[in-house]
């Protein structure tokens, strides 16, 4: 089971790379690097959080489970939003509208 989950995590990690690759490359190199760093960080925090929450809930550590949901998944969501914004999945349309208005 553990081996399969590691395998699945690897597949998801690579799938994520393929998914964001077309949008990760930016005009400035540091922005490209930032995108990849954020992706790795987001994946690590999300994976760690899921594992932590699963193990703690299966044993019955109630406070640890609820704290971890708040902490890890909260961080995961915040990072995901930031990353999605950098990659242009969200917020792009409004920028275009603003540009149109200025024009």
């Amino acid at each position: 089971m553990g081996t399969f989950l590691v395998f699945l995590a690897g597949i998801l990690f690579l799938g994520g790379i393929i998914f964001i690759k077309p949008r990760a490359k930016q005009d400035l190199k540091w922005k490209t690097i930032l995108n990849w760093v954020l992706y790795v960080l987001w994946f690590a925090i999300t994976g760690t959080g899921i594992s932590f929450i699963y193990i703690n809930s299966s044993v019955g550590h109630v406070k640890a489970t609820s704290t971890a949901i708040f902490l890890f998944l909260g961080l995961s969501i915040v990072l995901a939003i930031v990353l999605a914004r950098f990659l242009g999945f969200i917020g792009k349309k409004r920028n275009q509208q603003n540009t149109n208005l200025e024009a």
Partner: protein
Amino acid sequence: MFRSSDHENSQKGFQMDRRKFLKAGVASALTAGMVGAMNVLPAEAAEAVKNTAGPQTGAKSKLHPVVDYGGSSVSFVEHNDQWLGTTKIVGTIKPYHEADQGFYMANRGKYSPEAQQGFYHYKFVMKHPFGAAIAQFAMSLMAPQMVSGQPSPQKLPIPDPEQMSQHIKDAAYFLRADEVGIGKMPEYAYYTHKAPSQDDLMKDDLSKSIPVTERLPYVIVVMIDQHLETMLASTGYDGISASQSMRSYHSTGVVAVILANYIRGLGYNARAHHFTNYASVMPPLIMAAGMGELSRTGDCTVHPRLGFRHKVAAVTTDLPLVPDKPIDFGLLDFCRVCAKCADNCPSGAITHDRDLVEYNGYLRWNSDFKKCTEFRVTNKEGSSCGSCMKVCPWNSKEKSWFHTAGTWIGSKGEASASLLKKVDDMFGYGTEQIERYKWWLEWPERYDITALKH
């Protein structure tokens, strides 16, 4: 010869399109998955890997070749006239009378009358029927002929000390020990006298005390877990508390008695020391055998994996053995900043002091054993107490990657110990009761001994 197409390729550089990238990714993932899934080395290779992994001194067991220290970062330290592991010896450690230890002091009436009554015939344990059932079995191991005796007149041929140590460790694991270690026996750990009967102690009459004359060079220490799930469900001082102790006391006693009997059968001297018949105090033996460090409680040791959640029995012997070295996993630094046991001790017996004090020729924390004993033998909410065991960050949880990482961090000095304690508190470990594991029955009407008629 260089072909033009090669030249062109080298000029263009290696380009990876999405299809190639996908293929490479899937291939890498499959390879990693297959390596993980196989996870089975040829038997000889697995043996070689096992025998090289993990720190250890002394002889390696065949059944448990890798000593499980959890995530703790363990180093090996000295056992000489200045140090017993990480405990600093600053003077002469005077051996003492068994009747001067906490429970017997209560028995002698040196504490309160209620405490005296609570200890007499182990009422504080016997008041819970399950604790009584286990303790009564442990009593059957009390007789002198169970723990000691003359060795066989003919010495059987045995292998060299290293192989013999390996064999003794394997014999202990075979008998269901969780951990076993071998140490040089510290002479000061022997009692000067064994306490007389409880009836004599009630009269504070020590005239029938038996002098302890045995001096044997080695000690085999056997450790058994007090059960994780039960501890997770317990308050730390409810009806199951004494039974948890008895679980490990009786089982280590069985292992020690059998081992001592076996060694005597080989023609060497051996004496078992266990819950109902000690000739020695246990914590120095645990430290000598590389199985723990002295903790903030002042008289209890912590194991790197099991924490306080254990009891031990021992066998002193002159069988030629190779001793293990004492261990250092940073517990002194950890206890200095943690004090979670002191925060949660229902009797307030465990000190909050930062620094160690000199006591009988060595340094330790200055906890109040009178308060601890009083609470355990008169506890009206349960049977005995193990709150320090329950809350200690070293043993308050199941085995998992993050607890392993946590104890590794905690064993790296005061700053990281402080971090581990804060994380432990933040996640609520050690102070919760997980109801789903509460399997035992409670009889609260029996917990106030003074109100009991029988």
